């Protein structure tokens, strides 16, 4: 194995399919893992809470990117599927008394099934029509969880018990710290699984459908199966993110899963880079970090520009919108592409290309 990408040539398919080819890449991976392990000791609980939120968003964004970025099926129904995952897991753990790992697994399966069901229109629809059909699924799911009193026993929300695993209940003092390990572990596994998915025949057929679905069916890709699988796999990820949200935040209400959330997730994968797993991770971090960073900035600038701090909610929405517009205008392939250009610059230095 070579140290850098220069001069690498593959002599077998197995070597080409490997996820990492050089020592430099392996070292970087090691450094990143070491960073992930060291992180919870370096930041205070407030920021650790934000990092945990990022971790959950990473799972959801990877799921959405599988559908939108890799299979080319636009979906505005993310919020609805998150709600399905959250409600399923909360109900199974709370009312049916299932152990939490089992209830989360069940939530993944249920959301995958419901996702595949709402993916049925995708067999005949594309582009605008599909976007609108998924918008309808979002509104219908949200209406259901909002109006079906049985779900919340008439309260309007579900209280979820503090997580306890194998007889150990999470302590209040080390709440964020313990959750960090759970969420980081699941997020790493989810990312790894997604990376590997696109080395399999199924993952490749997703990309074939994205690039040209009629051509894909002509070379023997089963369109029905592939599109439904894409919806199911993606919704499974989203259901996992929803279930994690339920147990982490300990309340489930419909307000957490509105269309705004669907749009935020779409923004994550646009900002990070459509059709790239790493991009979904960067995008999730970026979009989740944007509001708290802006509020820090507004606090800092309060003496100079009081407007920012007074109008913080509006400023946050405006910044969110601007980020989407600017990324699409100037770097449609997102943060992932920017990071790649940085790497190329370093690799080729002192030459320009």
């Amino acid at each position: 194995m070579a140290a850098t990408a220069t001069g690498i040539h593959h002599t077998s398919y197995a070597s080409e399919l490997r996820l990492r080819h050089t020592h430099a890449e392996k070292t970087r991976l090691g450094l990143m893992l070491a960073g992930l392990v060291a992180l919870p000791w370096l930041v205070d609980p407030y920021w650790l809470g934000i990092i945990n939120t990022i971790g959950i968003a990473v799972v959801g964004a990877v799921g959405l990117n599988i559908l939108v970025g890799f299979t080319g099926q636009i979906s505005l129904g993310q919020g609805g599927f998150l709600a399905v995952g959250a409600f399923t897991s909360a109900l199974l753990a709370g009312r049916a008394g299932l152990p939490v790992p089992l209830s989360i697994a069940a939530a993944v399966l249920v959301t995958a099934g419901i996702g595949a069901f709402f993916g049925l229109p995708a067999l005949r629809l594309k582009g605008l029509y599909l976007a609108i059909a998924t918008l309808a699924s979002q509104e219908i799911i949200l209406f259901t969880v909002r109006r079906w009193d049985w779900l919340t026993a008439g309260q309007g929300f579900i209280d979820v018990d503090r997580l306890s695993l194998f007889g150990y209940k999470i302590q209040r003092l080390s709440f964020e710290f313990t959750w960090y390990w759970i969420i980081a572990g699941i997020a790493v596994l989810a990312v790894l699984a997604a990376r590997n998915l696109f080395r399999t025949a199924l993952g490749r057929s997703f990309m074939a459908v994205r690039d040209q679905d009629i051509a894909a069916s002509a070379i023997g890709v089963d369109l029905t199966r592939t599109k439904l699988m894409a919806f199911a796999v993606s919704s499974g990820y989203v259901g996992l993110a929803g279930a994690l949200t339920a147990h982490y935040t300990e309340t489930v209400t419909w307000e957490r899963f509105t269309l705004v959330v669907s749009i935020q997730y779409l923004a994550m994968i646009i900002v990070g880079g459509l059709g790239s797993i790493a991009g979904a991770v960067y995008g999730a971090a970026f979009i989740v970090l944007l509001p708290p960073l802006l509020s820090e900035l507004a606090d800092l600038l309060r003496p100079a520009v009081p407007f920012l701090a007074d109008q913080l909610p509006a400023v946050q929405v405006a910044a969110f919108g601007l980020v989407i517009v600017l990324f699409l205008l100037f770097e449609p392939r997102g943060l992932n592409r920017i990071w790649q250009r940085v790497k190329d610059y370093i690799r080729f230095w002192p030459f320009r290309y």
Partner: protein
Amino acid sequence: MSQLVQLTVYGLANGAVLALAALGFVLIYKATSVINFAQGEFLLIGGYMFYTAFVVFQLPWAAAVILGVVGAAALGIVIERLVLRPLIGEDPIAVIMVTIGLAAVLRAVVQMFYGTTPRTMPAVLPTGSADILGASVPVNRLFAIVVAAVVLGGFGAFFRWSRHGIAMRAVADDQQAALVQGISVHRIFAMAWAMAAVSALIGGLLLADLTEVSQNLVGFGLIVFPVVILGGLDSIPGTIVGGLTIGLISQYAEGFSPGASQVAPYIALVLILLVRPYGLFGQVRIERV
């Protein structure tokens, strides 16, 4: 019976506003094949622009409407030039997302200037109520239906007989052929956005007069989608039929069970898409690799 008449008038009035919003959406989609998720924000901005001219600057309402029309047209042109033109030919997902981002920016700007408290303004349309078939019906809703009908008729006539309207239809039909005929496609794109903003402005100020000026105007932007699917993306009569149908469906659903108006249009939408994937009046497109 009287409740039915009342719901019908409310449904038709909402439907007329919806048809105006949907007309703007269809204009943009036909001319530039952009799916505009900021249509609701155009309604919002229209309502607030009128409010500013009419209440804050105390202009007579006719002058306020004219100012609003000019402002909306300018806004549409600026947005087309700065945001949408660089994205011509990009992935549909990118174009959808850019209008979603735009929607967030527009909404936030309105919020920065006017806050979140709803504003009321003096009524422009005559108030009071009339008796129809034994039901008491607010007169301003009837007037709103008439205004919307006149405006929609005006747009229809524009596309039917005016030079620019025919040029717009030519671009919608085939851009290259239109270019060959010497039509400036760029100018048509700008015109489509300007006219969409104007039709949304009229919808917005009707809504503002019927209800109040608040952030809730945005909600109308999303119900545009069932309307255009129902009416098909290709025809102006289709948007009128779609707008009125969706307006009626949601009002009847509301009368049946309060709150159901939020979901009824979408259920209708899914049912239509299951039977006819290109909408009721939409053209079936043949795809090639």
